[in-house]
């Protein structure tokens, strides 16, 4: 991209980002980034049909993975579904494992428990005599440990008999083991306490085992719900906004916790505006010097181009009667903050698919020898902040508005000449600096009006969204995306990939 275009984009997106941040700062205490115009087009804000089926085009926008934009303070979207696709890849590079130290502890604890089991048998035999093979055979057990715990405690001391003895699990989970032993003799105290010690020694073993299983289960649940969304795990069907057809397949769930009625109310509240101003003047080489919000200038070949049906387009600095000496005011009215999120995974219901904590924990764990989630292979994404080249962002909020109204006020111009050359009845699309689209429609988005100034050398032209837009079907109604808030995994950075590589090489070794 030519330097002047880059600078133009930098200044425009930065100014828009700052204006948007300022407009919502009183309630939105998070950073915003300008959003580059994506291949998805504008945002279809009517996010569900009358049967509350999610709008496929809204999904296409929200489910993109976000990366650093081409311009300062901007972000850009991937194609539709980029985020769940990327998330699936990340999940497949995760494992849950115990640290070497805890694996050793597990082995040691099992060994200790085994020693304690021998103590149980020994103390039992000291008090009650040696356990014979015949006794074990009669009790239906094969080891002395089972004889004491399963038979003596489970059947005899518990009073349950051999038909419905207390199980080992019941004893292990008992709130008070002694209360389960109404027929324990007074001399049984030693054995009972030995068993209690045995069960207690198993607690850290069981806890580590439970923790390991929990991590593995969580990962498995996340993968299943992301890769195989269904009605039972929070997946959702979508409705084609063009045909109204509901998809037979399920997508991963997304939600917008802001009713369409509220979005509509916001868009109609035109008293809330975000405005951006520019001034232009002639520069050398047929270029135009542009100053955005009073910043240092840059030069472009075209500031604002109006394209109409049939392919004709008009550079608004070259139309007859216009001049390069003008000020431009862009005003977005009726803005609305639309919060959105993937359906969050819930441990209690196993519903939902997105849970960022395992990724965050894997990042934090890095190469450390600790329990928890780790990357077993290098994640295929930069998990850092967008400004650091991160490309695993997800949208959390979108600041949308009606299409901007653009007023160009010319000086040193010729209104009579312009009036003869210009038709207010033509509608079309607007492009800023030759590459920033201000909305896009198959039919023209904008119509224009003009007004003479104090004399013939001064006049203004105003482009505003075409009334034809109101005739668009509900599900296809779109809004201009001014900015968005983006979430990236906390702590994500360059060290993640190297940590995973090291781990992989260690495992190979």
């Amino acid at each position: 991209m030519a330097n002047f275009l880059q600078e133009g984009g930098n200044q425009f997106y930065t100014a828009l980002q700052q204006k948007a941040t300022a407009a919502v700062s009183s309630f939105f205490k998070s950073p915003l980034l300008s959003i580059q115009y994506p291949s998805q087009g504008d945002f279809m804000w009517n996010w569900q049909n009358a049967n509350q089926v999610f709008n496929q085009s809204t999904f296409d926008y929200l489910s993109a993975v976000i990366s650093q934009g081409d311009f300062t303070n901007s972000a850009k979207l991937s194609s539709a579904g980029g985020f769940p696709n990327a998330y699936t890849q990340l999940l497949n590079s995760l494992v849950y494992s115990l640290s070497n130290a805890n694996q050793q502890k597990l082995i040691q604890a099992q060994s200790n428990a085994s020693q304690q089991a021998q103590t149980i048998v020994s103390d039992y035999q000291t008090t009650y005599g040696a356990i014979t093979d015949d006794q074990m055979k009669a009790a239906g057990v094969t080891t002395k440990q089972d004889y004491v715990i399963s038979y003596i405690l489970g059947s005899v001391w518990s009073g349950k008999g051999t038909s419905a003895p207390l199980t080992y699990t019941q004893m292990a989970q008992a709130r008070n083991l002694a209360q389960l032993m109404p027929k324990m003799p007074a001399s049984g105290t030693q054995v009972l306490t030995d068993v209690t010690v045995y069960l207690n020694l198993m607690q850290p073993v069981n806890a580590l085992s439970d923790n390991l299983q929990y991590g593995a289960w969580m990962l498995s649940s996340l993968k299943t719900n992301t890769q195989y969304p269904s009605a039972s795990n929070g997946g959702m069907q979508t409705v084609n906004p063009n045909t109204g057809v509901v998809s037979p397949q399920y997508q991963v769930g997304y939600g917008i916790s802001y009713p369409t009625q509220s979005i509509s109310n916001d868009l109609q509240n035109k008293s809330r505006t975000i405005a951006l101003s520019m001034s232009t003047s002639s520069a050398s080489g047929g270029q135009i010097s542009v100053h955005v919000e009073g910043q240092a200038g840059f030069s472009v070949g075209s500031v604002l181009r109006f394209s109409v049906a049939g392919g004709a387009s008009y550079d608004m600095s070259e139309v007859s009667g216009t001049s390069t000496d003008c000020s431009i005011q862009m005003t977005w009215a009726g803005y609305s903050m639309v919060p959105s999120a993937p359906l969050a995974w819930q441990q209690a219901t196993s519903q939902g698919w997105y849970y960022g904590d395992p990724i965050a924990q894997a990042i934090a764990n890095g190469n450390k020898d600790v329990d928890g989630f780790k990357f077993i292979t290098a994640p295929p994404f930069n998990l850092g902040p967008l400004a650091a080249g991160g490309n695993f962002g997800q949208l959390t909020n979108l600041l949308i508005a009606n299409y901007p109204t653009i007023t160009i006020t010319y000086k040193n111009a010729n209104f009579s000449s312009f009036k003869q050359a210009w038709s207010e009845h033509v509608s079309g699309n607007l492009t800023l600096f030759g590459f920033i689209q201000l909305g896009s429609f198959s039919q023209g988005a904008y119509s224009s009006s003009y007004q003479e100034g104090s004399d013939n050398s001064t006049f203004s032209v105003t482009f505003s969204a075409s009334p034809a837009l109101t005739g668009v079907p509900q599900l296809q109604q779109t809004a201009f995306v001014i900015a968005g808030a983006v979430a990236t995994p906390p702590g994500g950075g360059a060290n993640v990939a190297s940590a995973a590589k090291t781990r992989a090489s260690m495992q190979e070794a």
Partner: protein
Amino acid sequence: MLHLKNIAAGLVCLTAFLPAGFSQLLTGAATACAVQDTGAQRIAVPFFSVLTDAINTAVSGRYDLRLKLVAYPAQGDLMWYYENPSGVFNQGTFDFISARACKGTVPYTAALSAPGGFPNAYSQVISSLYYNLSSADRQRLSNVTLAAREEAAQLVQSYESAFGSISGAQIDSAAAQYGPWISTKLDYIINVVAGSRWSGREAAGLPPLSYTDMTCAKDLSALLPDRPPNSSGTITALRAYLDKVHSVTALADSASNGSWTVRQLQNNTGRPGPGNGGMKTVDPNTGAVSAGYQPGYMVMNPLTGISNDLHNTDRTIRIVMQIRKTGPDLIRIRTAWNATEADTFSYLLPDSVYIDLFPLPYGQSDQVIEITYYGFSMITTQPYAWSDSSNTGWYDAYPLDQAIRNDTQDVTGYKLASWPPPYNMGAYEEGGTFGQITHLLICNYQQFSATLGYPGEALPALRGAAWPMPSASVPVLQQTAYVIGGAFSFPGSGP
């Protein structure tokens, strides 16, 4: 009352009048749940510090809380109508209050995780929770017979002195009558003589008193009404023996009870149901009630109270910031509560603050920012606390607190097998990432305006539009309130 606060060197250093520890907030350390991408943003940090102070000043005296601003979450605003007419909890409300809270990437803010983040995190942490006896206590437990040996010998001697020697035939006879577990003299005295005969249960045709019954008896003599006159020495020896054993077996009870508690917490969190306090939720969009159960949450305020508050526009918090660009710059804050002036204090700011201070363009002179929160209400919320007696609920901070304190020490009590835990269990100021929402200060809408303060000049409202009130067309379960700030607890971070 007028306070003066000095803000130095670009970022803020409010030390003179802030609570101890508050200055740690200024470091702005990254946290593991605030995932908002800050990128190359320039955030109105000084504005947030001033606003935080102003809001807390306004509410001080009414609420004994230190509120923090809440970074706008992906959940959006709070769906305050927290249950449908059938009493089913609003999923939208659940999504907000069940988030995990931590220090935000933007200083002075708290960030919220995705919905359900707190029970998810709690479930993961307690999956490695266990109750353990220290090595020393395990040894004490193992030596229970050794500890009671003298008392046992004394008991047998005392009995045989009074009633004659116990023969093998007597033990065999008792075993035949009561069961094979009667095999020693000690068993014979405690289970047969005391537990069955002296207790009167043999005469009544009842099974003997259990050993546990006698160990835990409030008054042992009362349990033995048929004891003979010459039994006092034996009773005394029996009591001494039981006391000795009981002092040690109490450890066993505590171990069993602790382990049982952990399992109930794990079960009730991971498998909530109608029997343990789990709750279904209603989708505010579709009205559908969930098939599955979530861990229970409660909002302590009645719906009518919240509704009345939100629609009472006399309930206002008003904050006026008068900014005078003199050297050094001065911000004078006036706060008001229900139209009554609450407090006034001033900040000194360096020039550089103007660059960042929302929303004022650099170089402007005297200005006034006015923020009014209309129809405020303080919401109190909590997870369904686990009850030992009913075994309902899922949240109990005590075992976690103790496990964090116990660390990896060889002590009796709760511990985490997987150490360190996967979250920072410190307080907000310490970058804690395991916070739960306890209070939310909400309002119906806020009015914001910034005006130029030149005498005689019109005071244009730069951005004076109100946050829209919930429209009548918005379904009741989807009606939202703006969250001004919140208070949080961080289990494991100590008192």
